């Protein structure tokens, strides 16, 4: 085995520095006040405006109409991220369950049809999707924000591969034990998919949290703003000779980064546990 030397550590530390450095600078800058930042540029030392900045970011009514606070944006982001991840998991699990266990003659065809939607990401179908949502009157609703993004070929694909690897005898044993399709799904497949669900939840939550284009098109009421959109908003509202609130923008960026990081950290331990004690 390779023996780790001092220079190995040096390389790793350098990598950590490159990755964490900007985040550190962003956080430190957010603890200063706007004038400081404007005059002296980015900061690497702790300022004394931490409480003020974050309190203001979370509670100050912002925007043109003044009916959105940072806290509201955090909530919107969570609704989008969680709704997105949970919806995608539920839909793709059900789709994969149908494809794998209810073998109809066309299931392969259906699978490939679902798969080809990978070639049609949101950006390609954004106009028709928006059109449909307007006609359904779902502009400026959470439903309109989340539902059109839920169909997931990737999720369906992963769950399909996983279900296929579950031994047939398990289904047969369950059938003999009197479990119907619904019971088998809930009692056997879902618990077995735990680690799969955790993995997909991480990916989809982060993906949903970071959505920018779709929320921008679907919602124009400021009360629906997400954090990712809000950052830009703060920089837009400065008018005239007012100093841009860079510290607040950095604070929002840090806030926007925090939940995805936490989700990854929390679920990762499950994830590793699931990988090491194989459950199948």
């Amino acid at each position, binding site marked *: 085995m390779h023996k780790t030397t001092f220079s190995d550590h040096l390389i790793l530390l350098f990598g950590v520095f490159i990755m964490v450095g900007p985040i550190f600078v962003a956080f430190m800058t957010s603890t200063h006040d706007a004038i400081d930042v404007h005059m002296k540029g980015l900061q690497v030392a702790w300022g004394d405006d931490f409480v003020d900045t974050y309190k203001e970011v979370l509670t100050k009514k912002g925007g043109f109409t003044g009916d959105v606070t940072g806290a509201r944006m955090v909530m919107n982001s969570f609704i989008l991220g969680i709704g997105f991840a949970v919806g995608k998991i539920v839909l793709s699990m059900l789709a994969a369950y149908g494809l794998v266990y209810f073998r109809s003659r066309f299931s392969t065809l259906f699978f490939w049809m679902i798969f080809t939607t990978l070639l049609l990401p949101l950006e390609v179908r954004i106009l028709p999707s928006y059109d449909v949502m307007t006609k359904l009157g779902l502009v400026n609703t959470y439903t309109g924000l989340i539902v059109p993004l839920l169909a997931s070929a990737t999720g369906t694909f992963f769950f399909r591969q996983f279900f296929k690897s579950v031994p047939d005898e398990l289904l*047969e044993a369950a059938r*003999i034990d009197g*479990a119907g399709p619904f*019971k088998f799904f809930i009692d*056997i497949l879902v618990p077995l998919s735990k680690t799969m669900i955790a993995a997909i939840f991480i990916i989809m939550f982060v993906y949903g949290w970071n959505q920018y284009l779709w929320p921008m098109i679907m919602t124009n009421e400021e009360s629906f703003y997400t954090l990712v959109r809000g950052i830009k908003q703060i920089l837009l509202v400065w008018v005239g000779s007012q100093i841009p609130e860079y510290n607040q923008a950095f604070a929002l960026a840090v806030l926007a980064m925090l939940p995805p990081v936490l989700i990854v950290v929390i679920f990762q331990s499950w994830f590793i546990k699931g990988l090491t004690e194989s459950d199948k």
Partner: protein
Amino acid sequence: MAAIEISSVSKSYTGDALAVDNVDIEIEDGEFIVLVGPSGCGKSTLLRMVAGLETITEGEVKIGGKVVNKKDPAERDIAMVFQNYALYPHMTVYNNLAYGLKNRGTPKAEIAARVNEAARMLELEPYLERKPRALSGGQRQRVAMGRAIVRKPAAFLFDEPLSNLDAKLRVSMRGEIKHLQKRLGTTSIYVTHDQLEAMTLADRLVVLNGGKIEQIGTPLDVYHKPASTFVANFIGSPAMNLVEGKLTGGQLMIGDNSMQFSSAPPADGPVTVGIRPEDLQPTTGTGIKARLDYVEELGATRLAHCMTDGERLTAALSPEIPLADELTFAVLPEKVHFYDHATGKRLSNA
């Protein structure tokens, strides 16, 4: 507990060859039936049709007098033990045993009573709170058995339940299964390709070949009167010697060796002659002359592989008997089996 009747049952998977071909078996209440045959002969398919996991192409399966062709596995009142155990990996042993009862709406207290009783019977009590992955192969096997027992079904169906265990454990589990089945008196169908397992477990054996029944009978029946060269070759280890011979009015010629029969089958011409290795005993008198090829020592016996006129003969001898390059074997006339040269069917020499 119930009798099982399999009448003219056939199965074709894709419309071409029949995996199971017109099979009739009547199984009495409480009987232990073993389906045995080489790989791919349709044993599992037949068992799975009884279980309801495979549709029946033709024919009828009755359990306890009722036709079950169209019934779901859960409605057939059977329990199945799979080769790979098929335990629910995320449930504790207790829940594995209880799952089938829960689904049937059995009251909690009764579930607990039945699970504990089964656990006691199978010595699983210390493991009830463990997950299957924390059990040894033999313990998992027991849990699979327990899952069948707690349900108190009309019949147990076993599909090669012991083939994932090592040789020693297989022998002891074999004994346990037999013991348990006798104690519970539950009708059982057991699939194996191991003829020794089949012989030791069965009340009656069903030998299958290419989807067809070759013979049904008690282990001793099948051993002493194999109905065809296939059965003769399949049942018994080392396998029965099958050599070409010629019958002319009570006189059998095997190469240059001749034997006289007072009650030979009424057939003239070429026949296939079967002799069990242990029925060949060296003699100083007349008999079948053979040249010793090589010897295998098994401890209690010794297998002498010989050649006689281009035919291979194996004799199971006691190790005390001195060996020579040239041996002469005597056979009792009633230990010689005659088979039709063309069809391989047994010719009666009653």
